[in-house]
């Protein structure tokens, strides 16, 4: 049971981390809490669903291969939507007080959410999302682990490692880090600010998109307001870990997931208290260690 609950926590942690990484990237590069970030996950799930419907004529019983290909298209498309959002709604506010940009992201998030609710057929209702992974179970000694759990754990954490490599090992990653550290100095070194920020939005949004699609594939259901829930958890994870710190987002996600799983597993009546305990942890961090576990920057701007 302990091994399995640990797996449950790791899975939940991977989902949170994919969203939290985006929050931390945006905060690092733009000093911005992007409240529209959760909607990228939701948009990805619904874009994928629409693509399944358009290209295959149905959303169930379709070959996994084409689902994967179309999901990839959806993820890239949402990365593009992220870039577009920045270009249209945020770029012109870059010099304005930080609060304005923050409000703009809240507005963008409402627009996306309500657009899906109104434009997608029966958009207020939960939509069935096909499973992207084969059914079945791997037996590891006494434990049976379903394929999809393993696959999601694998895909999730692999992408996070890849994002880490991208940021820390590539030239573009170096530009992102440079802008995050000191925007003026980066400009003086000849870094194209607009392009770097656009790249960051593409990266962050497509990671959030992956979270949305994995979420849909795992639970089998997506809803127009799923982005909001993911955003709250992802943002909280980023705050606990330390906004602006890449590893902080990972650690924060794992801490939140562990707290939630532990609450349900160990406390009597814990399943209705999971959000209570996890947000108590968030509040605790905000009060006693506002910089988070690994964070060094101040979060006063939020």
């Amino acid at each position, binding site marked *: 049971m302990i091994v399995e609950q640990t797996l449950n926590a790791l*899975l939940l942690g991977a989902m949170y981390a994919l969203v939290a990484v985006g929050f931390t990237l945006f905060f690092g590069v733009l000093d911005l809490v992007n409240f529209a970030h959760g909607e990228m996950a939701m948009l990805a799930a619904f874009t994928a669903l629409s693509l399944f419907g358009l290209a295959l004529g149905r959303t169930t019983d379709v070959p996994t291969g084409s689902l994967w290909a179309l999901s990839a298209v959806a993820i890239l498309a949402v990365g593009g939507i992220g870039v577009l959002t920045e270009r249209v709604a945020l770029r012109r506010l870059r010099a304005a007080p930080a609060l304005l940009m923050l409000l703009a992201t809240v507005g963008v998030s409402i627009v996306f959410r309500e657009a899906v609710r109104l434009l997608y057929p029966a958009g207020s209702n939960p939509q069935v999302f096909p499973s992207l992974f084969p059914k079945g179970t791997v037996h590891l000694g006494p434990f049976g682990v379903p394929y999809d759990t393993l696959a999601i754990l694998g895909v999730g954490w692999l992408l996070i490692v890849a994002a880490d490599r991208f940021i820390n090992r590539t030239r573009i990653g170096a530009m992102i880090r440079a802008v995050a550290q000191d925007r003026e100095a980066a400009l003086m070194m000849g870094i194209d600010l607009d392009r770097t920020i656009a790249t960051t939005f593409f990266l962050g949004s497509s990671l959030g998109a992956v979270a949305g699609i994995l979420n849909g594939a795992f639970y*089998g259901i997506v809803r127009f307001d799923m982005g909001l829930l993911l955003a709250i958890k992802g943002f909280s994870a980023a705050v606990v870990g330390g906004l602006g710190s890449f590893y902080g987002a990972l650690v924060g996600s794992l801490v939140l997931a562990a707290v*939630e799983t532990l609450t349900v597993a160990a406390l009597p009546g814990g*399943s*209705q208290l999971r959000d209570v305990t996890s947000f108590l942890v968030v509040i605790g961090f905000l009060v006693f260690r506002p910089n988070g576990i690994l964070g060094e920057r101040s979060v006063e701007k939020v």
Partner: protein
Amino acid sequence: MLRRGFLVSLILIGVLALGLVPGTPAGPVEVVKIAFLGPLTGPNAPQGLGARNAFDLAIRQANASGRFPYRIEGLVLDDASDPATGRAAALKAVSDPAVVAATGHWNSPVAFATIEVFHEYRTPIIIWGAIHPDITRRGYPEVTRVAPTAEQETAVGARWVVRDLRLRRWSVVHDTTAYGTFTRDAFVGTARGFGAEILSVDGINVGDRDFSAVLTRIRSLNPEGLFFGGVVTEGALLRAQMVRLRIPAAFFSISGIFDDKFIEVATAAAAEGTLAIKPGVPLERIPTGRRFIEEYRRAGYREPYGAYGPYAYDATGIILDALRQVGPDRAKLVDAIRNIRYRGILGEITFDREGQTRLVAVTRYVVQDGKWTVWEDSEYAKGKRKIR
């Protein structure tokens, strides 16, 4: 000064007297009205419109029968699923002196708001669709209900799975809404009464999607059955994750999950063997039901009668029956309805001390090959398949 005051009062008295004349039952009563309240607009309109048609059908048949020495009229009022609108509609109904009784409501919050009005004006109301157990527990003699509550339904279901299917060790998961907690209490109470052991009780929030932690804990208790008190989405996710974690227990729930969406979300493979119970009987299976379907069809209503149409039809029938016994008098109707013995579509309706129907006709279902199948027709009942 005195003269003028006298004149004014004289005129006032005259006006009042004139105004009162048509209202006083000087001659024989010509029109008696029965009010209908329900959601005719908004998201629940399909429920309300079907019930309204059934109500209308009952009144048309009563007028055609020639058994009433006066014409009966329906006063149809929209409650829009909103307590304030419902209250205004109720006030409109009770302030019409021709209205002798009412039937109403699909939404419990609306019913809570209007029963106060009907109680205050001593006007009987029969609830056809709102199923919160407390509606009939205010101690109002005017309020009765023909639809079985979630509690009654759950109790019948618990008897089935514990006594008849001999599943003794149960884990309970419920959502934290009123619906979830009422059904939890009804299940736990009844199941224990039939000798079941309740191993765990867990509440979940509506909107939660990840139940793996709570299910992992439940699996270690090794229950024979898992009862879920809640509605479609959480129920389907719970069932799917239960199968994913290979918990070899039966899954039983109430009408809250009875929907094709449950099978779609959980997937047919995972939903296989899910047990559920639903109030009502498929009407085409019983003669009274077939007659209702036929008469409803012949009347040519545009909307289908819906899940609660038959209840609204019976509620109206009870009012008409009482009306024939005691005549158009609100106070007498209150008692007559309380003590009625009425042959309705689903069986004989009588009311208990609270005014709640004693008739709890339910149908048992099991998911077989991706379809909700009546238990008696299923391969599970014949022993060809096992639910665990």
